[in-house]
């Protein structure tokens, strides 16, 4: 059942560029890519929040770090994709390891605030790096080259690369949810003391999840700078982390499709409502309230039978 849904969703996502071309609406491919990239970032936060129970208000910092890693390399004229991948993974991974090792000493609201603190430090750091745009942001003219003449400037190439990353991460997340390690992580989300009493290395498990989520967010950031050709310190601002949190909670924290559903619905709504009124945030706020009040397990939860674990 779930597999059939996944195959249909994948086929539909692959068909998007041709459908848009047939409709003469190529412009919307950029929006589709944006949705896919935000889906990757939201899925990484879903891993952290929904599966491991760590509410982080600093997740945008890793998205921003990945974006700056790729953006700075492009500004220096490096286009080879392995270099970008390595730089993004290392930058986001090392930052996540350091921030995680310090932050995971705390729990609950204290964890939220300490992740926020680190994100704000990186935000002001990005603001002060005058060599790479400072508070005006960094504009890049080139894109990552995949091989030969193919680079991410072609909207379709970018879309399919992003889609491949999203598909791979969803597949891994589904495998992870069923695995021994995944079940252990979900157990510590539900009751940390009990998991520790059962002999689970709680701190190590949480740190690994924190790093993996950070790296995936970094990759989303690297893709976004290649989509927009621009990265500014605002990518690291805590309101961005808030947006990602809203996406995950809207979509359904802890469900496999939660991040994707939340990112797609929120971005499409923004796009549609903003076309009609300047005060789009007002209307979307009502929608979010309704979802939180009446669909407590998020949009993905609406499609699951009650009593079945996500």
């Amino acid at each position: 059942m779930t597999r059939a849904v996944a195959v249909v969703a994948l086929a539909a996502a692959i068909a998007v560029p041709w459908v848009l071309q047939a409709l003469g609406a190529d412009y919307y491919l950029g929006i589709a890519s944006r949705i896919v990239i935000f889906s990757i970032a939201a899925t990484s936060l879903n891993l952290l929040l929904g599966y491991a129970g760590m509410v982080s208000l600093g997740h945008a910092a890793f998205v921003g770090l990945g974006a700056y890693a790729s953006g700075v390399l492009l500004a220096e004229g490096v286009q080879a994709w392995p270099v970008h991948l390595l730089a993004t993974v290392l930058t986001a991974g090392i930052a996540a390891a350091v921030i995680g090792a310090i932050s995971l000493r705390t729990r609950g609201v204290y964890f939220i605030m300490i992740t926020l603190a680190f994100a704000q430090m990186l935000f002001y750091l990005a603001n002060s790096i005058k060599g790479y745009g400072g508070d005006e942001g960094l504009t890049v003219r080139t894109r990552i080259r995949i091989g030969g003449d193919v680079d991410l400037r072609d909207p379709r190439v970018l879309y399919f690369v992003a889609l491949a990353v999203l598909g791979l991460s969803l597949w891994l997340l589904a495998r992870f949810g069923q695995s021994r390690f995944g079940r252990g992580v979900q157990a510590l989300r539900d009751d940390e003391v009990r998991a520790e009493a059962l002999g689970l290395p709680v701190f190590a498990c949480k740190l690994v999840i924190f790093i993996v989520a950070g790296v995936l967010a970094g990759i989303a950031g690297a893709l976004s700078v290649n989509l927009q050709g621009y990265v500014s310190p605002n990518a690291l601002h805590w309101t961005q982390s808030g947006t990602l949190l809203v996406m995950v909670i809207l979509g359904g924290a802890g469900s496999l499709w939660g991040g994707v559903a939340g990112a797609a619905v929120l971005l499409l709504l923004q796009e549609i409502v903003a076309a009609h009124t300047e005060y789009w945030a007002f209307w979307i706020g009502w929608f979010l309230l309704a979802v939180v009040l009446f669909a407590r397990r998020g949009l993905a939860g609406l499609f699951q039978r009650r009593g079945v674990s996500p």
Partner: protein
Amino acid sequence: MGENILILAFVVVVIGGIGSIRGALIGSLLVGAVDTLGRTLLQHGLREALPAQWASAAGPALASIAVYVLMAGVLVWRPQGLFPVRGG
């Protein structure tokens, strides 16, 4: 819409320890002092140590970061804030 105050108020409460009135008072004094002193003194201090060009770039950034460094430091030292509330 008041985000700056919101975040700073959160920082104060977390530094002091959630649920602790005494913590909120001490925390607010600490945050206010660090933020204000950071903005005035850091730039002068950096000018002594670094070339003027670097100091004028790093000064404001470090001053904005100071409050967050304070919070991270306090939470590393005392994960429940300065005045943890028992049973809270």
